[in-house]
């Protein structure tokens, strides 16, 4: 087996038992790694009782899985997964950094966490020396202190334990902030500063397992590849294409805070009441003034699209974060009515520090602000906060309350959709119409009303990862940037930014072959392999539970906000029409192998050897009256 070590580490947090788990070449060949392998492991272990598994209970499984291309394709990434406390399905949430490189160099393709620790713990991996350690001293600490403490303690420990090697580099760390510890469903698994596996809410899963961090140092090489010369050749080809992406390299996604609003009119503004703005104060030229590092990247990346922003004076002094990237510019900026870079950098830093996903928590903050605007939530309800659009300080206070689960923060910590259900009940008004989410997941900052951005009608309603803008359903289905293609990126694992240029798609297949030795043709991927993974994810999403279950007839839909017309800008008046969306959803179901109710068909599942999934889907088909 090439490109893999063939071993996963399995850690039972309840007993403290740690063992190695071998994965056969056949399983890797079918599911590749990352998101694909996560679907396989979760279904095998939890599928039978999926509806009963509490995502925040000890029965849930937390996965951190690399892929064969991790370390070989520019930009190291790892996929975090498990049963999602947001969608109750499974989300494959990838995060960049050197963590997956260190893990592979330590001899493991991934980690499976089961059970839950009794007291705050972290896992320390140094090659095959592995220890579950006490994390009481960093429990409750924010990002900065957690990272710096673990780096310095671990280096000291290595220097004492492995004498005579010289200076130790820092280990790599995945960790959670206070929000994850408090089981906020909007919490991310994070790395460095501002690196987050946000979608899915796996920060809360780590918190529920009392797992503060995973720290790893691997001193070996990356696994052997099938053809080293070709691996280098195709990796270099990918690098060359990336190096020619001048504008993206220069500004990263940080140029979009202005342009997506002004040009495409698909940027959330004040909880998506609008999707257009022309605020020049929010231009990349203004953000750039705060960048102290204009190219910042992770292992092997040729784009280095991150930009390190620091605020050195004024009310927000001390904020250090990336860029902020477009999603955070939108969700912790325009969507809160904020149009100045300093406020946005500050709120992004605060979200990092507390361990939140900027999209999920930003969506919940805006939702609360709209309820305040409409008089549904009062200042009293908000613990005295005057939550006006554009007031960064007020939003910061509310974010802190969410992280502490204090007052209204306890409700919003459940994420926008669950908070909407609760508030509707308490207030006796249906506020779910203001929740811009799909299947419990806040949608990414790319609207579809103007018709100018990349997502389209089926993108969010049919995604097996709900509102995840990085994993959108797409027609034609065999498009590399559609969900079946993205499953390859999330399984192999490749950064989708390396693949924006279609010139790199061919190189991706070739690199996969060079590393693994497997000749996987697009046809096999789109018709067999990716479908298997997609259907398993779809099955888990539809089974849902225990607190919420999605009915495709109702929940395979866009947020109801998008049926309201845009109010401003060149696409003013544009709104979505439900019948058109339903038509396209039907077409997507047909193409992808789902029946008229959106359930994977028996024929399709049997064709792919997923008889056990078919058995579970039979129950759903009966419930929903599938033909």
């Amino acid at each position, binding site marked *: 087996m090439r490109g893999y070590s063939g071993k996963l580490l399995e850690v039972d947090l309840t007993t403290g038992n740690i063992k190695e788990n071998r994965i056969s070449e056949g399983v890797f060949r079918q599911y590749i790694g990352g998101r694909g392998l996560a679907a396989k492991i979760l279904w095998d272990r939890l599928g039978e009782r999926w509806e009963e598994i509490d995502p925040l209970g000890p029965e849930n499984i937390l996965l951190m899985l690399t892929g064969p291309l991790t370390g070989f394709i520019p930009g190291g990434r790892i996929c975090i997964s498990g049963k999602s406390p947001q969608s109750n399905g499974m989300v494959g949430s990838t995060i960049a950094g050197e963590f997956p490189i260190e893990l592979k160099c330590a001899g493991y393709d991934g980690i499976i966490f089961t059970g839950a620790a009794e007291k705050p713990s972290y896992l320390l991996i140094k090659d095959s020396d592995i220890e579950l350690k006490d994390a009481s001293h960093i429990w409750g600490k924010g990002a900065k202190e957690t990272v710096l403490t673990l780096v310095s303690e671990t280096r000291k420990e290595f220097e004492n334990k492995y004498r005579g090697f010289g200076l130790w580099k820092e280990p790599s760390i995945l960790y959670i902030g206070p929000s994850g510890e408090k089981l906020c469903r909007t919490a991310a698994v994070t790395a460095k500063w501002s690196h987050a596996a946000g979608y899915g809410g796996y920060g809360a899963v780590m918190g529920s397992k009392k797992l503060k961090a995973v720290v790893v140092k691997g001193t070996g090489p*990356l696994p052997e590849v099938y053809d080293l010369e070709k691996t280098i050749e195709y990796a270099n080809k990918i*690098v060359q294409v990336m190096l020619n992406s001048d504008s993206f390299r220069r500004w990263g996604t940080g140029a979009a805070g202005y342009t997506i609003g002004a040009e495409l009119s698909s940027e959330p503004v004040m909880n998506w009441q609008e999707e257009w703005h022309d605020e020049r104060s929010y231009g990349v030229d203004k953000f750039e003034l705060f960048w*102290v590092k204009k190219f910042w990247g992770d292992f092997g990346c040729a784009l280095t699209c991150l930009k390190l922003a620091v605020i050195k004076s004024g009310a927000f002094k001390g904020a250090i974060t990336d860029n902020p990237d477009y999603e955070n510019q939108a969700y912790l900026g325009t969507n809160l009515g904020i149009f100045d870079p300093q406020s946005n950098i500050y709120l992004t830093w605060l979200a990092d520090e507390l361990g939140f996903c900027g999209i999920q928590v930003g969506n919940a903050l805006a939702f609360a602000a709209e309820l305040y605007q409409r008089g549904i939530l009062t200042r009293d309800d908000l613990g005295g906060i005057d939550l006006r659009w554009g007031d960064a300080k007020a939003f910061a206070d509310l974010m802190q309350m969410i992280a502490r689960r204090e007052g209204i923060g306890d409700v919003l910590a459940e994420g926008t959709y669950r908070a909407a259900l609760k508030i509707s009940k308490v207030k006796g008004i249906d506020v779910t119409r203001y929740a811009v989410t799909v299947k419990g997941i806040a949608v990414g900052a790319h609207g579809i009303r103007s018709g100018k951005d990349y997502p389209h009608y089926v993108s969010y309603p049919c995604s097996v990862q709900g509102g995840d803008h990085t994993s959108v359903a797409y027609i034609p289905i065999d498009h590399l940037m559609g969900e079946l293609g993205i499953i390859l990126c999330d399984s192999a694992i490749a950064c989708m930014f390396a693949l924006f240029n279609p010139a790199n798609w061919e190189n991706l297949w070739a690199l996969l072959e060079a590393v693994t030795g497997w000749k996987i043709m697009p046809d096999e991927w789109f018709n067999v392999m990716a479908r298997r993974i997609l259907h398993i994810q779809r099955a888990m999403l539809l089974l849902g539970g225990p607190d919420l279950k999605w009915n495709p007839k109702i929940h395979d839909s866009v947020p109801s906000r998008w049926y309201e017309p845009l109010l401003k800008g060149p696409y003013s008046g544009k709104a979505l029409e439900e019948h058109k969306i339903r038509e396209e959803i039907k077409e997507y179901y047909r193409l992808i192998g789902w029946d008229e109710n959106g359930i994977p068909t028996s024929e399709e599942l049997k064709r792919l050897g997923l008889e056990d999934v078919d058995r579970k889907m039979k129950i759903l088909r009966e419930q929903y009256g599938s033909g």
Partner: protein
Amino acid sequence: MSQSGPIWIYRNYLNCSGCRRCEIVCSLSHEGRIWPEASRVRIFMLVPGIEIPHLCVQCHDYPCVEACSVGALSTSKETGAVLVDKEKCIACGQCIEACPGKIPYIHPTDKYAVICDLCNGDPKCVKVCSEGGWNALQLIRGRVGYNSKLYAKTPEMITTEVMKVLFGEEIAELI
């Protein structure tokens, strides 16, 4: 293709993107594998955002060569690089102790001191760094004399200095 005459790798820490492409090409070239922990240039990231390329500076007085008691270290007349004789090296760590920047380290499996050999005059790390336009590592031809040793500092020392510049003194102190 090797250059004749001494060369030096200039490092501009403020420019380092942390992409670690230098570690990739270095370990591929010297070890035939991607192997960050056996790379002659190592990127230290003691504080995220402050990435420090750490590699031999070729001090004019070569304290590491002086300190080696088994004669495993010598200098290249061509490039000025410190050359390690893997057979003679006993991984005692005296060169590390003698280095003002604690730059050498012991190879993780083969137990000899790892020191940059300047790729025989054609350093691969510089190539990828220039190719990407980062220019954290740049090639300087000719002897740089006493200045080179100024760069022989520990990652901790360099991190503190760079952090003050990038974050500002007050914020750096908080970290």
